């Protein structure tokens, strides 16, 4: 089974995010960059499938040179090789990212692409699904369980208020949701081995794409901090009952939410 995994390097979720002086990007000083948490699920699932069926796991990422760290993390977890697509000075939106990945993947042979269902920086839920469209293969999102048999995949997916099962023939792209698995940690020997695994870097030009092909359709005009919530009111009272009664009254009369 030839498996491709999409990963993105993002600020760790515990990061405080501050807006940079240009007003359209964030300050990156002091921020720890990690593999997107949903992509860890994707890497883990790919490794499990390879362990069961044999094959190769290739990690792809679009990002600056530094994003190679996220690919190395995946290689340290056990993936075989990596491809970094570095757009250089170009500003790329979600669809542009999908176009770069599609161009890199088209010459490869693959049965399955596994991605995280979203990256926790842009939160745009776009790249994986858009890539499947550009490759003209089916996609299945929010996957919490999968089963491969007879050239097909059957996935359990979360939807509002329940789950559904979706089936599609290979090749297919699936997008991981929490609950799919518990990603392994990279072991020390794994980290050592990862340093020697092949990782190639490609530019848009290597993939036959020019700046005009990647022109962003979505542009950030301004970043804003969300409205700060004002300090709370501590409910006082002689007893738990008194506090509860006071809170219930405030929710009805002042906040008008019950």
């Amino acid at each position, binding site marked *: 089974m030839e498996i491709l995994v999409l990963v993105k390097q993002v600020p760790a*979720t*515990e*990061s*405080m995010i501050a*807006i940079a002086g240009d007003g359209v990007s*964030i300050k990156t000083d002091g921020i720890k960059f990690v593999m997107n948490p949903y992509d860890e699920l994707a890497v883990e699932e790919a490794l499990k499938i390879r362990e069961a069926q044999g094959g190769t796991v290739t990690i792809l990422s679009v990002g600056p040179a530094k994003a190679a760290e996220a690919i190395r993390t995946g290689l340290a977890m056990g993936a075989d090789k990596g491809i970094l697509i570095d757009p250089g000075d170009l500003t790329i*939106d*979600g*669809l542009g990212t999908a176009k770069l990945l599609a161009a890199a993947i088209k010459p490869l042979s693959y049965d399955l692409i596994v991605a995280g269902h979203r990256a*926790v*920086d*842009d*939160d*745009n*839920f776009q790249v*994986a*699904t*858009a890539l*499947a*469209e*550009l490759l003209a293969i*089916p996609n*299945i*999102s929010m996957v*919490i369980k999968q089963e491969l048999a007879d050239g097909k995949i059957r996935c359990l997916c*979360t*939807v*509002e*208020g*329940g*789950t*559904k*099962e979706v*089936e*599609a*023939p290979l090749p297919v792209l699936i997008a991981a949701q*929490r609950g799919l698995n518990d990603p392994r940690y990279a072991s020390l020997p794994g980290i050592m081995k990862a340093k020697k695994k092949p990782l190639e870097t490609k530019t848009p030009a290597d993939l036959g794409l020019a700046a005009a092909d990647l022109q962003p*359709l*979505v*542009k*950030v*005009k301004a*970043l*804003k*901090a*969300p409205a700060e*919530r004002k300090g*709370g*009111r*501590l409910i006082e009272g002689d007893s*738990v*009952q008194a*506090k*509860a009664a006071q*809170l219930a*009254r405030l*929710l009805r009369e002042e*906040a008008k*939410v*019950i």
Partner: protein
Amino acid sequence: MTQQVLVIAEQVEGVFRKVTFEVLSAGRRLAGQLGGSVQAVVLGSGIEGLAAELGQYGAEKILVADDPALADFTTEAYTNALAGLVGQIQPAVILLGATTQGKDLGARLSARLNAALATDAVGLGVDAGQVVATRPMYGGKVLADVVLTGMPAIVSVRPNTQAIEAAAGAGAVEKAALTLGDLRSKVVGKQFESGKVDLTEADAVVTGGRGMGGADYSAVEALAGVLGAAVGASRSAVDEGWRPASDQVGQTGKTVSPNLYVACGVSGAIQHLAGMSSSKVIVAINKDPEAPIIAKADYAIVGDLFEVLPALTEEIKKIKG
């Protein structure tokens, strides 16, 4: 140039999601700014009877895409159906709810149509003829105003962020001609918990965190019951295995914007705050007066949640009569 706004209505098992009326209302307001009108399309099987309801929220025309292959949502079938309709209508803007299916459909359509996409918008406007969407990034730690160029611009709208306004539209219902093509993916099973309010659409959410101390959420569920609220969980409660991952509120879970959010035994880590700080009113119940959630809450009770929750449940029951 026409300035049509096309709203993709979302129905599940023959019932419109509330977000559909929110998006339609927002679509009508946006069409007003663009000097155009709003059309709606509803997809499904045997759904003709549903369509007229959309006219009550300003839809001038309602297209019904009715086909057995559209009975259950698959990204592929819905994308194929919509791409054909978009080709005929040539809308300037396509709006849909940022639900599980809406987010996936928006992404696939954006690639099919080579169109700009903004996911999970909390605000919408027009600036110099271009659509500007306001959307959270970094799990809500930042809000971005993004400009969408080209036609159509696709925006999925976060549930619970747009006011519903009834408005008489012409409401002409028309059956859509469909080309679905070869469909490879299919839904082979589904399970819904009956009567369960979804976290992202609920008017009220009661969340239990590490302070719950175990998988017994009966105190949280009792309060949620009297409030008609959905039950959520913090990441640590999910990691402990007390609640399913689908209940998780926060940066690696769901983002919620209910009218009332009650955090019980939740410390308020930055990832959690990102997922719920756009709630209108926040209540925190925590035994630690220094917990970060207390400083973000509109109302806080410092105390043992296993004493406070039953008392609060009783008091709310009394008030609601």
